[in-house]
């Protein structure tokens, strides 16, 4: 992975997130506390402002720096989770000799794994993990199966979309929505939506290049 690509991804994510502002905001208002968009925006804005500093660094160090910055910038539930994701991803990339789609898929999976650990959470709890876990699986499986880039990206996007939609009918057992019991049913999780939007944006970026 190139640091230049990471910086492009940050920009793509920023645009995508802003395009979904009111959707993400109203999802967190419905079964959360309404700040999820603001939290992500704060994170993305801060990282975007680090462009110069980051561009001089190798990709794994840049990801580690991003993770630490997010940790001290976002707060809330999503802050430590996103931070863990990037820090874990950075660790895996650093240990890899050679970079390939397979190592990136493994790093992504390790990032997701560290979210599970930090959040003491798993699939089916109406969180961002209902997007991230299936995406990690699809990513690995498609790479193993030797799918070409367009097929890989299409599969990941579909998996993210499906995961996001799956949260609608779930009872929440983690995050703020867990406090709502039955009342959370019928609403998509804000973190699942924002994760899907970000993943989709990165896929679209890759499709262009």
């Amino acid at each position: 992975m190139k640091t230049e690509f990471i910086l492009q991804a940050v920009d793509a994510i920023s645009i995508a997130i802003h395009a979904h502002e009111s959707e993400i905001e109203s999802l967190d208002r419905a079964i959360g506390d309404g700040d999820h968009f603001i939290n992500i925006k704060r994170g993305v804005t801060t990282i975007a402002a680090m462009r110069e500093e980051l561009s001089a660094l190798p990709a794994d160090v840049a990801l580690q720096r991003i993770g630490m910055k997010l940790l001290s910038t976002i707060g809330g539930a999503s802050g430590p989770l996103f931070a863990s994701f990037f820090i874990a991803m950075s660790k895996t990339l650093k240990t890899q000799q050679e970079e390939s789609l397979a190592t990136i898929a493994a790093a992504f999976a390790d990032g997701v794994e560290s979210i599970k650990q930090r959040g003491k959470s798993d699939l089916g709890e109406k969180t961002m993990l209902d997007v991230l876990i299936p995406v990690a699986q699809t990513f690995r499986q498609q790479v193993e199966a030797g799918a070409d880039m367009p097929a890989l990206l299409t599969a990941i996007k579909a998996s993210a979309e499906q995961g996001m939609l799956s949260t609608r009918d779930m009872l929440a057992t983690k995050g703020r929505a867990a406090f709502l019991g039955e009342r959370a049913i019928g609403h998509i999780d804000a973190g699942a939506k924002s994760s899907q939007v970000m993943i989709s944006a990165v896929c679209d970026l890759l499709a262009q290049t």
Partner: protein
Amino acid sequence: MKIFVNDVENLLVESLSGFAAAHGDLVSLNLDPHFLTRAHKAKNKVALISGGGSGHEPLHTGFIGHGMLDAACPGHVFTSPTPDQMMAAAEAVECGKGVLFIVKNYAGDVMNFEMAAEMISCEHATVLTSDDVAVENSTYTTGRRGVAGTVIVEKVVGSLAETGADLAHCKALGERVNQRTASMGVALSSCTVPAAGRPTFDIGDNELEMGVGIHGEPGRRREAMRPADDIVNDLVTAILHDLKPVEGSEVLLMINGFGATPLMQLYMLYHSASKLLAAHGLTVARSLVGNYTTALDMAGASVTVCVLDDEIKQHWDSPVQTAALRWGR
């Protein structure tokens, strides 16, 4: 919803600066990372640190001072603070007997404090507050929300820490107070997060949200407005169902305003709740009425009952010198 604001991005820092300036005798402010400590560092005691999203003022900054907290870490509005804040605060106030974090039980707060705890080198422990009975406990979930009862935990443990008690004792008392404390709230209107600029929830002119959270989260159910005594009866019933206090117990009754409900109303609710508790054979031995754990500009209030014992009562009564709670000397 209109608010006083220059630039919404600077609101928190301007407000913290004002707070620190108005209470320079009590607190001192650090920016980047944001935390407040006592103006005069205490010695030879467990350092008590709390924190959480802003918008609940006076919680927690208003409770820094002799007999309560050593430091508080304010996050953005309704957003948990970040680990670097807690680490820097711990560094600033730890004085040899360890750090006790008092954390309201929300995923964000729990995780951020947890990460700070993992990274600091001194002895530390955490009390999670979870007094909100609006959300029934379930083994599948992360448990209940921490709300206004947190003030009682901070006051009582704050007093114990002042005696030089060790970390284990402070943690144990905090957990006992939390177990003996239950709260439930009701909203008549929504709050508005300044950066969002619109109400968190919509509510009809004749509706109330029973069991609302202190961030405007939905509670047990949306209901039609009813007489105050009926509403209070539901709150007190849910609380007593959870606490199951022995008849004849002494209790502390707290009526907490969420921000936009006048004091006149809060005292009326106190009147209503105290009659009900008496009818249940309980003695209201201590009281607290006012805006102590707010939700910005939300209209509504919560009832909190803490079943006292001698140790808790003694530490409730002991002197406290903070911006928002002050008695004794």
